């Protein structure tokens, strides 16, 4: 019993109250147990000094050996950004961010060159880092059937299975490489879904983005394996601004996974990414995220500020974009993966589990913009709030005048664990077409004493019971994840739930 209490309360009963130092040690030890990705890789790196002006941007562009048009694109975005103001959201308490105190470029290669040409050239320390994170990059131990692009701070350190993918015409590379190897594709689609003027953080990203992944699936090709990017923030006081662009040509299919972690630090770190998806006629893109950025400690110190703009353009007829996300990390999460349903008969899906614990804040949801005829969207959102955290769903369904027979089904469920947390649902609908059919369902529930007792009586411990009940609550979303990811997502939830009762 004693041992169990320990875990629940997050405090060691043997520690004398008031003995802060001792207690801190205990808390730290436990916290590190909890966030096992919280280690720092000790590696020589090249980092730009903090600060942001046009010179910073020119420098980034020079390091990457970028063409003129891209530098112009960045500078244009920067000028737009300077005229914008940091948004103030109702449900998030965001401390003022000092953009001059952040470094905008950090590369684990001391010679400031770009990514190594092959995986053999990658620093063993980096390979070790990804091993530790469970994403092996070595030839021998690679994840079966999953190609990985590994992004470390501002650069991609390697992409696996490239040659195999090239055989079927699939382009999967770091963004920087794509700029060199496929400039016509990048130029055509960069900013086509999320323009640099879209919002404050999208503008900042367009100005300073460092790396990310680029995917192109040619006509009629079903990508033979899952593609994934693993983002890792390592350097201190740096922001990560990656950019992902995925284009599925007519009749193409791709399933893409995104994972992310960062070391535990007392300082907050900024992550402002942009993801753009384009689906042509009959193309399907399935985009899954397991977001596990460092959430800060139990007192709300440290953690990642995660401000992400993700948007998919269902440009073609009968195209489909599906977002699935499991969000357990970050001190603050602000993101609304969205679909623009432009093509007739196109469909968009959003499946989300967002868990917040301690002092985490999440404001997440989706926008489904129906422009084409017979367009369909489905939104399933599961919010779980624990501790003192605040969890908000914000969704917009908009039906344009010409979008005859648009259909939307939205279901938002919130689960509260404990008494000091909050769940909020803000569904917005705008319909300019009489034929639209929009359905919305929302529930808020708590894990009841009776449910816990029932599990206990059958021999299931309280922690396992909560995990079981939460797992059941998230069922509809988990089943949308690729298998390996579903297992990881479930394990992550369990870790994040630790100390949920006390």
């Amino acid at each position, binding site marked *: *019993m004693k041992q*169990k209490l320990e875990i629940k309360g997050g405090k060691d009963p043997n520690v004398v109250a008031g003995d802060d130092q001792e207690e801190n040690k205990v808390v730290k030890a436990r916290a590190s147990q909890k966030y096992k990705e919280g280690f720092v890789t000790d590696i020589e790196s090249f980092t730009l000094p903090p600060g942001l002006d046009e010179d910073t941007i020119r420098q980034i562009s020079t390091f990457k050996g970028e063409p003129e048009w891209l530098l112009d694109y960045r500078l244009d975005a920067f000028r737009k950004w300077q005229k914008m103001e940091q948004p103030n959201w109702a449900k998030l308490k965001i401390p003022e961010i000092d953009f001059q105190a952040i470094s905008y470029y950090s590369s684990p290669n001391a010679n400031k060159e770009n990514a190594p040409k092959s995986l053999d050239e990658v620093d063993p320390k980096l390979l070790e880092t990804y091993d530790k994170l469970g994403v092996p990059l070595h030839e021998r131990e690679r994840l079966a059937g999953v190609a990985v692009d590994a992004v470390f701070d501002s650069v991609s350190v390697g992409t696996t299975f490239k040659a195999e993918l090239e055989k079927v015409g699939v382009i999967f590379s770091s963004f920087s490489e794509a700029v060199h190897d496929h400039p016509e594709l990048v130029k055509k689609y960069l900013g086509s879904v999320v323009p640099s003027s879209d919002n404050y953080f999208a503008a900042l990203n367009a100005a300073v983005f460092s790396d990310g992944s680029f995917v192109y699936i040619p006509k009629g090709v079903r990508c033979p394996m899952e593609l994934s990017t693993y983002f890792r923030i390592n350097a201190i006081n740096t922001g990560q601004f990656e950019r992902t662009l995925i284009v599925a040509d007519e009749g193409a299919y791709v399933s893409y996974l995104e994972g992310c972690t960062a070391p535990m630090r007392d300082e907050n770190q900024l992550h402002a990414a942009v993801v753009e998806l384009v689906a042509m006629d009959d193309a399907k893109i399935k985009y899954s995220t397991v977001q596990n950025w460092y959430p800060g400690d139990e007192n709300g110190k440290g953690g990642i500020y995660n401000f992400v703009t993700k948007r998919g353009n269902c440009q073609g007829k009968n195209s489909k974009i599906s977002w699935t996300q499991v969000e357990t990390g970050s001190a603050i999460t602000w993101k609304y993966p969205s679909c623009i349903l432009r093509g007739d008969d196109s469909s968009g899906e959003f499946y989300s589990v967002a868990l917040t614990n301690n002092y985490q804040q999440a404001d997440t949801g989706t926008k489904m913009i129906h422009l084409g005829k017979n367009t369909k969207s489905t939104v399933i959102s599961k919010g779980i709030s624990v501790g003192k955290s605040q969890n908000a769903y914000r969704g917009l369904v908009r039906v344009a005048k010409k979008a005859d027979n648009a259909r939307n089904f939205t279901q938002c469920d919130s689960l509260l664990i404990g008494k000091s947390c909050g769940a909020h649902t803000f569904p917005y609908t705008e319909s300019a077409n009489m034929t639209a059919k929009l359905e919305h369902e929302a529930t808020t529930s708590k894990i*009841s*004493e*009776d*449910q816990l*007792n*029932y*599990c*206990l*009586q*059958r*021999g*299931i*411990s*309280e922690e*396992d019971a909560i995990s*079981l*009940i939460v*797992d*059941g*609550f*998230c*069922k*509809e979303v988990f089943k949308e994840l690729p298998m390996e990811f579903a297992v990881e997502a479930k394990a992550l939830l369990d870790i994040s739930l630790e100390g949920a009762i006390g």
Partner: protein
Amino acid sequence: MLKINDVYAKAGDKEILKGLSLEVKPGEVHAIMGPNGAGKSTLGNLLAGMPHVEATQGSVDFLGKDLLDLEPEERAAEGVFLAFQYPVEIPGVNNMYFLRTALNAQRKYRGEEPMDSAQFLRMVKQKIKDMNMRDDLLKRPVNVGFSGGEKKRNEVFQMGVLEPKLAILDETDSGLDIDALKIVSDGVNQLRSPDRSFIIITHYQRLLDHIEPDFVHVLADGKIVKSGTKKLALELEEQGYGWLNQ
């Protein structure tokens, strides 16, 4: 097997059990009857270790262990099973997965190997057949959308899978139609064995036509006020509880 010694217990803030004693030997079936609010469910909850019931005096010995000293999940693993009067729903968790989690948690406590899903499936399929129940029960989320009778059946099915040493059935017969009553009592009878005991809480003597008890007790105002054999249940059915006070 079980020895309850002059126990006083509170449910919430209210003292409900007031000096209750009862001994159950291996293989015995004890029926407990008594008016509404007498404390029958409270007794079941006390034995199962439900947190809102707290013993203030007395002791309970279960197979040589001080039962009141164990956590509820430990009691379950030691072999105490409570079929709830009002089984709860757990959305999204399929019944079979729930049961496997429970069984393996109990096995782990007892130092036994976990059962893999293939083994478990085989065992569960056999049980459900033996117990004459429909196997869609397995795939559905725990008690969600179950009819009252289905919930009770599910409790008995879970008991069959978990094979407890002491099973407490709290009004498992309430709300059952005639066929379901037969299925449930057959399920119980199949499980009867020389080293498994039952405490059956019921309001109706008809259940005892199907499950023959060794003893019948009347619980009123927090204690056992009368004990007897099956005949006592028939008397109660005819005369109600009023005469006990005279």
